[in-house]
């Protein structure tokens, strides 16, 4: 416990700034934007934490990291120990330190934030995890003796990897079935290199493998073995973390013109298939000269900032509400603005038009104004009559959300889903309606964040463990 005088001193320390690549420099490359804290900066930032007796930040963390403890370790210069402390509750700290919306979670409730800027918990998390990895100090925790139970995990994204890591640490054998050729899910295909370098994801996956998690790529559950077959052949329980599935389109004319992408496709081509290095890599992507991204969430920002780096003349965001309602993280919006992203707020596309070759040439838009709040509590956008105009554009990227992927449900109709096709679970245990099957992440939530998927997986792993021990459903 820190005495009141010391607390006052600590509260005078300013938040340590994070160095980052200059905007005009970074839009020419795909390297990570922030440089990360130096050791001195990390220690100084850690000193801003007043080590609350009842830390609110821990409650604000979906996986319940012991935040004051790991920060104290950083303050004491015990960086490796800090990383290990993080890993006790978070299998992917280097990822979460980068992509978590800390401003809505731990940092939002930080007491220091009441009077000034909260402790930069996310940056400290990133620092500790990076330090451990870069100093070759990653050690594998002791794995208990095999319990004799086996768990199949469907999907190698944030939810699946978290469940796998937790379960293997409990002594169960775990096999992850990943549909793509590489594990990581949205961390590999969705989030761009400049926000989450792929070598970090690879090293986190490598860590799980070293703990004994078996990862089978190119394995589409439902097409190869079904969940019933997994349960009857080899496995005692199944965790489904198959992620967000089918991208939504707007159902407006011209949507299938060449040059109209879903954000999933555009990002997959660039991130997973490395189209930004075409023709060194074989997968192409249309870079466009004038790119419009439709939507205002984090995925839209990722797509737009990726498009900016492929050197077109203009990249804009088209969003039907105002800046205030943009669902993306403030940090992403800010980075986008710095990089020259144009925001066409209170705009909505009504039609895509193309040339004789079927290639996109323009988007017809209308302007919007905000009316009364709708069911979501946000003010409803209303079309302004007669406001139609045409925006020249040769690549359009739709980032308006995802529906549920049908592959699991097609072959396991006894897993109950809601009207959108997402799997319904018991919130506390992650249990589905099918005995022995648990689920979490976007296949349950529709479209959410990495950390909430990880929180789901953690809860599910605990109840899988309980189920395997007691056999009770």
């Amino acid at each position, binding site marked *: 416990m820190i005495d009141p005088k010391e607390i006052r001193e600590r509260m005078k320390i300013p938040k340590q700034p994070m160095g980052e690549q200059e905007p005009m420099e970074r839009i020419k490359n795909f390297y990570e934007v922030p440089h990360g804290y130096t050791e001195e900066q990390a220690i100084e930032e850690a000193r801003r934490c007043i080590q609350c007796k009842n830390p609110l930040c821990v409650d604000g963390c979906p996986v319940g990291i012991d935040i004051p403890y790991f920060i104290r370790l950083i303050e004491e210069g015990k960086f490796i120990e800090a990383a290990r402390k993080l890993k006790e509750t978070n299998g992917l700290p280097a990822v979460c330190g980068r992509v978590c919306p800390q401003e809505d979670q731990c940092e939002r409730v930080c007491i220091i934030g009441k009077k000034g800027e909260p402790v930069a918990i996310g940056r400290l998390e990133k620092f500790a995890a990076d330090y451990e990895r870069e100093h070759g100090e990653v050690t594998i925790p002791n794995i208990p003796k095999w319990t004799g139970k086996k768990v199949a995990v469907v999907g190698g994204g944030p939810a699946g990897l978290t469940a796998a890591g937790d379960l293997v640490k409990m002594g169960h054998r775990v096999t992850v079935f990943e*549909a793509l050729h590489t594990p990581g899910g949205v961390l590999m295909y969705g989030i761009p290199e400049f926000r989450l370098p792929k070598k970090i994801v690879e090293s986190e996956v490598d860590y799980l493998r070293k703990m004994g998690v078996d990862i089978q790529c190119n394995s589409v559950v439902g*097409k190869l073995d079904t969940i019933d077959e997994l349960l009857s052949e080899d496995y005692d329980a199944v965790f489904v973390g198959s992620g967000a599935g089918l991208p939504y389109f707007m159902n407006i004319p011209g949507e*299938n013109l060449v*040059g109209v992408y879903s954000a999933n*496709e555009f990002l997959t081509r660039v991130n997973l298939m490395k189209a930004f290095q075409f*023709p*060194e890599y*074989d997968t192409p992507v249309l870079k466009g000269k004038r790119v419009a991204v439709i939507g205002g969430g984090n995925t839209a920002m990722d797509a737009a900032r990726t498009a900016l780096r492929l050197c077109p003349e203009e990249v804009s965001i088209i969003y039907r509400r105002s800046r205030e309602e943009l669902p993306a993280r403030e940090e992403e919006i800010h980075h986008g603005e710095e990089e020259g992203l144009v925001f066409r707020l209170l705009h909505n596309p009504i039609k895509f038009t193309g040339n004789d*070759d079927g290639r996109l040439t323009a988007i017809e838009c209308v302007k919007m104004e905000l009316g009364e709040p709708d069911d979501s509590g946000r003010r409803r956008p209303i079309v302004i009559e007669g406001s139609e105009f045409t925006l020249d554009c040769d690549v359009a990227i739709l980032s308006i959300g995802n529906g549920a992927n049908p592959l699991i449900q097609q072959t396991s109709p006894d897993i109950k889903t809601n009207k959108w096709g997402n799997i319904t679970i018991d919130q506390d245990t992650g249990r589905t309606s099918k005995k022995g099957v648990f689920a979490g992440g976007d296949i349950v939530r529709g479209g959410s964040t990495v950390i909430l998927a990880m929180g789901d997986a953690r809860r599910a792993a605990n109840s899988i463990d309980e189920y395997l021990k007691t056999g009770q459903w």
Partner: protein
Amino acid sequence: MFEITEKKKLAHLVYQFKIKAPSIAKKREAGQFVILRMNEHGERIPLTIADSDNEAGTITVIVQEVGRSTMLLSGLDAGDTILDVVGPLGMPTHIENFGRAVCVGGGIGTAVTFPIGAALKEAGNEVISIIGSRTKELLILEEEMRSVSDELLVTTDDGSYGHHGFVTDVLKNLLDDKKKPVDIVIAVGPVPMMRAVAEVTRPYKVKTLASLNPIMVDGTGMCGACRVTIAGEVKFVCVDGPEFDAHDTDFDELIMRNRSYFKEEKTATEEYAYHQGQGGCCDEKKTDA
């Protein structure tokens, strides 16, 4: 890694590969496909499974050299490996005893017609197959198709073998035979051929299916690259297809979308050809050094 156990040249630029993939061989049904990625730099390309051998644990794919990736594959031999093979993807062909079924295969599309014809025959249908190509040298799977058909009709555009003309000419004759009504037509081949088949059967109101071959990336519904318009509605070929009612399919849109990367494909192919001409690709050079 997936090993190639057998390679066979079927026609000019057309090769048949048997690939060791036991779990896919066990599960696959007629009409389904796999996605291949040749190496770390490779793109993901969909190929229909032409056949499988559960005992040997192999699947058969047939590929025509058209661009960089298919050239890479065609350059491989038995004993070589393919980095990634995923499947079986897509919905299997709906097989039942329709009665009199006509399978139309154009060019390399016959590779897809073959397993469908076999399954239809197995289900008790009278199977009439029409296979066609530009010229005799390009015709593939004639014997295989004959083995699953009650009657096999062959066409070549140049008249070098079989009926001189298009598959659609022969198909029209069959449809005109009032005594033997056709119950279903399944067409697989170049998109213009499938479009032509749909137009021939439309006035006869004969149910006609086409197996579509759009550009894909993940092949599991995640990206939407393969979207097509069927009866005015957007469908994903990878999860909803690959077979759709040909009378409802917007083939013109499919042709247009398949040309999305026309320029980029040309660059990639030229690059590949250039490096081949240099006596090896860049990766090999790196290894040598």
